[in-house]
């Protein structure tokens, strides 16, 4: 059987994120479209941010950074969850793996109980 998914995930981590970004820019420029720097919709992110009553004005830079960091967060959480799947020798990430990541990774404690 192949080695634990954990090793694979960490190996491709940097490679994938960098090459995906570069590839997107190159492809977009080649087809004369504007390069896609964000994949998640800026407007939707802005609406979520506005749910905070203390949040009024949002600069363009701030919106870009929040959107982009959410993408990075998704990747991060997906990889952390996948580590727990590897230990069970499964090939499909399930919700319990996400829960396990939340329980085990300190920076994810804000999600504790939030996904029920």
């Amino acid at each position, binding site marked *: 059987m192949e080695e634990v998914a954990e090793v694979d995930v960490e190996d491709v981590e940097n490679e994938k994120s960098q090459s995906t970004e570069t590839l997107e820019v190159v492809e977009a420029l080649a087809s004369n479209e504007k390069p896609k720097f964000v994949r998640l919709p800026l407007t939707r*992110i802005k609406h979520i941010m506005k749910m905070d009553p*203390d949040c009024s004005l949002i600069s363009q830079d701030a*919106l870009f950074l929040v959107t982009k960091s959410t993408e990075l*967060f998704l990747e991060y959480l997906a990889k952390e969850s*996948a580590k727990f799947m590897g230990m069970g020798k499964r090939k499909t990430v399930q919700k319990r793996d996400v829960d396990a990541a939340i329980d085990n990774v300190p920076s994810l404690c804000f999600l504790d109980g939030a996904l029920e």
Partner: protein
Amino acid sequence: MAEKLEDLNLPNLTVQKIIKDALPDSVNVGKDARSALSRAASIFVLYITSQATKESQKVNRKTLSGPDIIAALEELEFDEFVEPLQAMLKEFKEAKQKKKSRKSGDVETEENDEVVEEEETGE
């Protein structure tokens, strides 16, 4: 106009692509896990926003700025995001500058970018 968090989910297909790209091809993601990851991302947005808002309030500023977001990420133990984000922000700004200088010769207006520049007043 109280919008629930569920009404502001991120688009499923986009979330799915981001997750799939982050993981090896041989790995699948179950529907319940995808849904959980998507919800977690929405909660993350609120979490960062809340922290960043505190930063801007400290200096009595009403507009959330880029540095507020960076400070929030560091505060919440996501420092590893900071460097890549700053690089991406730089590229984003440079690309916009290029577009703007080209624009003077073009008739084409790029509405999509402009919308983001608008600073809405909070309600």
